[in-house]
């Protein structure tokens, strides 16, 4: 993996940041949580509509850097139709993907766009922030 700006901020990340998916508030979420990184000003709210243990809808509202916003946008596409357990497993996979001290997963599936952040440990918190909000949202009974 080369530390090339174009590899990192490649088409998909810039795409998700500029044309975010599901960037809106849910009228009646069953689960929601906010996560903030006061060090950099990133802030993200994840809202979910969960029916019978499956995520029917997921949305986000985020303020902050491109990686945070792109990660949130990717998240909302990935967790739809997943069970809560599957969604949390994705959060774990993302954690391994961006942690340079953990062995690099060979196949990150739809998390591939975020693989580049692995080479930027300074930006790890930006990528994981929406997934932290997801964990908090799913931790609440609902």
């Amino acid at each position, binding site marked *: 993996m080369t530390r090339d700006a174009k590899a990192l901020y490649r088409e998909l990340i*810039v*795409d998700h940041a500029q044309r975010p998916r599901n960037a809106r508030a849910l009228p009646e979420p069953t689960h929601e949580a906010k996560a903030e990184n006061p060090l950099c000003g990133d802030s993200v709210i994840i809202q979910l509509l969960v029916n019978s243990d499956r995520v029917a809808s997921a949305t986000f509202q985020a303020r902050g850097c*491109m990686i945070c916003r792109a990660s949130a946008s990717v998240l909302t596409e990935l967790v739809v139709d997943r069970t809560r357990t599957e969604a949390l497993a994705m959060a774990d996979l993302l954690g391994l993907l961006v942690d340079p001290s953990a062995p690099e997963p060979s196949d990150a599936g739809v998390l591939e766009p975020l693989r580049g952040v692995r080479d930027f440990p300074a930006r790890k918190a930006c990528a994981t922030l929406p997934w932290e909000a997801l964990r908090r949202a799913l931790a609440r009974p609902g």
Partner: protein
Amino acid sequence: MGARDLAEGAVDISAVRAEFPAFVRLVNGKPLVYLDSASTTQKPRAVIDAMRRAFEATANIHRGVHALSVEATDAFEAVRGKVARKIGAQDPSEIVFVRGTTEAINLVAQSYGRARVGPGDRVLVTELEHHSNLVPWQMLCRERGARLEVLPIDDRGEVRLERLDALLAPAPAIVALSHVSNSLGTVLPIATIVQRAKAAGAAVLVDGAQAAPHVPVDVSAIGCDFYALSSHKLYGPPGVGVLWGRRALLEQMPPWQGGGDMVASVRLEGSTYREVPHKFEAGTPNIVGVIGFGAALDWLEARGPERIFAHERELLDYATRALESVPGLRFIGTARDKVAVVSFAVGELHPHDLGTALDLEGIAVRAGHHCAQPVMDHFGVPATVRASFGAYSDRSDIDALASALKSAVALLSGGRP
């Protein structure tokens, strides 16, 4: 490389840079362009060598009768005198060695502040303060039932002097303010503010961490009661800082940390304390660090502080012009009197994204709140990108920054306007 002005009296930048081992480094395959001197400075070989020599045969200070101890003590105490001369202090015994500016301010807040500030009293700071000159006063006010008040800034990043007299009536117990803003580069009119604060009856502490590298410091002319600065901002090692305080105040203040070296005689029933400044220097200090700091001060004197200041002013002008050509760039902090610090935002791009893109080109800037969240709040941004210059900075650094910023803007905007 950019143009170098070799007119008589000007800085020969290539000679300066050759003294700094850091500049042989490649970052991401590119030559290091270090534009984060406001955060910490690179160190000249003279400082590194002085510290290495001090490590090679070391001894503790103030305690021994053997040769190495005498050498170490003399070397350590000599730096006290150098610092005093550097900042216009008359008496080296007014120089207390601490860990850094943060520790110096905490020392004053705790030792002086606790005795001076009581319920209903006020402490005045400015909106520009680094957290290290804000949080200790918040803590003191909470502990003592006092109120913290703030002299605001305007949208140029200058303090609103017209609000000062109202804030000084009645006089706050303590006024604590920066000499130079680390986040915006503003040079505050401290002689004016200090004179008015003293006339009103306040005690005044000045945070000089960002000032000492960039402007002359003369505590006698400033008229303050305390002045704090850090070695690592001045081409010296981290872990060493200075609190200058008026002797009469330091003598009245209770000791801060207790232990060896700050006591005259110790019995189980009680102890007596040594004279100033030793009263405030408990335990073994950062001896090698202080010696390194002394070497940094020698290095600065030899290079000529005024020449460095003039060089930095010229770079600030050059940088301001160069960055104006970056599409969507807006400066944050446009005070009329500034040091070589440039904070900016570019369109809606997040500073961290810009910082990462610059890092890939070997360019080190600071992207964040610069330990000055109130300043960020004032300008309605979570963070800025800050480029800051030092004695070794040159026009080629600025050219690289401007060029990389333009590329980053194009890349991060995904080709969109």
